[in-house]
């Protein structure tokens, strides 16, 4: 089995578990919540780099007669990225422990952080649903070793 495949699957599972922990602040406590959120930014960049061939091919196809399904999936993934950027950015601006120097005095950012993270749950679940078959196949492949 290719190490890249194992890396992709492991990274995806770490991302999912991290998101689960991040969605419940009392579980982690505020300090771990903030540091885990910052670490997530790096993991997302890695996730995107590992999916680069899909991103490049879909962007090209999006403007050159892609199917309706491909376009919807592309817009969903782009929205997920946008929401993730918004959640991390608003999280940094409302930070109390990890990067208080970057925090804004404007408390509306914290409220926006909550709103965007609500949207993120729906988008992550859709992302998971769309890639469910791949996830099942990948898990079967690992278990069949």
């Amino acid at each position: 089995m290719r190490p890249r495949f194992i890396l992709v699957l492991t990274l995806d599972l770490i991302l999912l578990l991290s998101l689960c922990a991040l969605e419940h602040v009392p579980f982690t406590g505020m300090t771990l919540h903030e540091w885990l959120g910052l670490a997530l930014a790096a993991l997302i960049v890695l996730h995107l780099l590992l999916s680069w061939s899909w991103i490049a091919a879909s962007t090209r196809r999006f403007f050159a007669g892609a199917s309706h399904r491909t376009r919807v999936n592309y817009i969903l993934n782009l929205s997920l990225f946008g929401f993730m950027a918004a959640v991390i950015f608003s999280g940094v601006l409302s930070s109390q422990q990890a990067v208080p120097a970057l925090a804004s005095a404007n408390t509306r950012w914290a409220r926006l952080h909550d709103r965007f993270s609500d949207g993120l749950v729906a988008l992550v679940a859709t992302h998971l649903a769309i890639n469910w078959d791949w996830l099942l196949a990948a898990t079967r492949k690992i278990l069949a070793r």
Partner: protein
Amino acid sequence: MKLATRIAMILLAALFFIGLTTAFERITHLPSDHFRQTRELRRRAPEPRLARYPQVLIQLGAYVMLALIGRYILRLRL
């Protein structure tokens, strides 16, 4: 395409969405009192011990349930 170029493109895209978020914050003017109260409540609440709370499992279950609804009821797939 070089790795550095790819990372730069990802960061630029993130910057674009950060710009959109800032614009959204400017135009919405969400009231902040509600959150200030929530933050105070969180600050006063004791930090729970990790082992006592299976919230991550509950969250994971919620994601999987939503994904299953999406995949098998709404028939989403690549």
